[in-house]
């Protein structure tokens, strides 16, 4: 009896200690913060404020963001089960189209809103995955809660989804893409993505 108890207790203790993973505290957040700060400095740059410089500014933002976002992972997740059914040519066609759409959406978001302040509300790391919680205060006195989902690739924590007030960017596209593919076809999706890119 006593023995069983002891073994159980030891098992529990080892289990509890085993749970405390040796996390690299702050690494995903530091990397994200670095990228965000770079983007904000481009937005704040007075030399790039004039409308004639919009294109240059966009290109600089895209370059910064490219290093932090994992476009292929996003594309894969946005197609979910349909991804496996695509040939590599179709994937090669899809990924850049989706990437350019997301880049434009991102640029729209950061340019359109006046970000008063960004506060980092903590991160949680689970193996190669990390979630970074951020609160963005707009100039109109409202707080928007954003979560960055990141995946570790080498030394980099790359963003694969952004949740804004609980709405996942990639998840939202996944629902739309699924609907389009199921109701018509993948080529229809490509067609509509092209139209969308042309509209911007």
């Amino acid at each position, binding site marked *: 009896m006593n023995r069983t108890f002891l073994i*159980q207790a030891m*098992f529990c203790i080892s289990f509890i200690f085993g749970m405390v993973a040796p996390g690299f505290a702050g690494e995903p957040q530091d990397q994200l913060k670095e990228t965000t700060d770079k983007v904000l400095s481009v937005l704040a740059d007075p030399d790039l404020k004039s409308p004639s410089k919009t294109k240059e500014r966009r290109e600089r933002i895209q370059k910064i963001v490219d290093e932090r976002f994992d476009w292929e992972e996003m594309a894969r997740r946005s197609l979910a*089960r349909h991804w496996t059914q695509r040939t590599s040519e179709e994937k090669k066609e899809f990924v850049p189209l989706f990437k350019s759409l997301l880049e434009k959406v991102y640029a729209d978001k950061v340019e359109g809103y006046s970000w008063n302040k960004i506060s980092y509300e903590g991160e949680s790391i689970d193996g190669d995955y990390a979630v970074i919680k951020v609160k963005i205060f707009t100039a109109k006195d409202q707080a928007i809660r954003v979560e960055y989902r990141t995946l570790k690739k080498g030394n980099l924590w790359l963003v694969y989804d952004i949740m804004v007030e609980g709405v996942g960017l990639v998840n939202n596209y*996944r629902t*739309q893409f699924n609907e389009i593919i199921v109701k018509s076809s993948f080529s229809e999706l490509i067609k509509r993505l092209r139209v969308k890119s042309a509209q911007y």
Partner: protein
Amino acid sequence: MKLSFRFFLIFTLWLITLPTPSFAEPETPLQPPIPSEWMAVSDEFSLEPLEGNLIQTSQTNLNPYGESAYTVPDSPLLIAQTKDPAEKEVEFEEQPDTIADPIEPVNRVFFHFNDRLYYWVLKPVATGYKTVVPEDLRIGVRNFFSNVTTPVRLVNCLLQANLKGAGNETLRFLLNSTFGLGGFLDPAQKEWRIEKREEDFGQTLGLWGIGPVFYIEWPFLGASSLRDTLGYTGDLFLHPQTYLISSIYISLGVRFYDVVNSTSLRIGEYEDFKRAVLDPYIAKRDAYHQHRIYKVKERK
């Protein structure tokens, strides 16, 4: 007595150790007795249609095996996927559950109606209003309307047994109604950092375990679900406006002004949204559903 207590202790400890297997997953996965491609296929499909509530699953997702059972997946990537246990977990966790939409044709008509309403009526009115009234005042009006609807949030915090939230709302109301000049300013947030708890009866019902049932796009009111429509109706009883204003026309007028004022503070957001998406109706429906799940879950 003593013995049974010991049994109880061991039982509890055993319960605590239960989740151990999921943590003790081996680094190299065991080879399953089936070809890994099969696993990959079923992996991609997630358990959503099987384990999820069927009512909450949209029609399009009901038949996950129909199309892909015969496809040949490209192997390197898929095998990589099957070999990564963490990946699997995340895929499942992130699989969005979709909202049922049996009245989609009707919803789409009303979506179109609301869309036109925004571009033809709301946006021009709000833009005109914006050019006349300075932003600070518009934020003040928004704060005022928000302060008036404190009872809705307070009662729902109580119904959700969120005493801290209820306390916050009471404090906010007292502070903002006095120091905040009748609610036009928000010193509770700015000086005392007491945050507003956006709770409504739809969320309360959600917390009590009631699902959204299905999606409804109401003309004028916009995105909702059967549950949230019920919630909205319930909240009207907590709206001071319901009791203070007896004339329905004045009541509608006040409501319209509230909407115009808040729209004037967010012109451009809907346009951005429509630019970003391929199917605005589906995107709005999904965003609404995910946001409501988030609101029900989020508690402080």
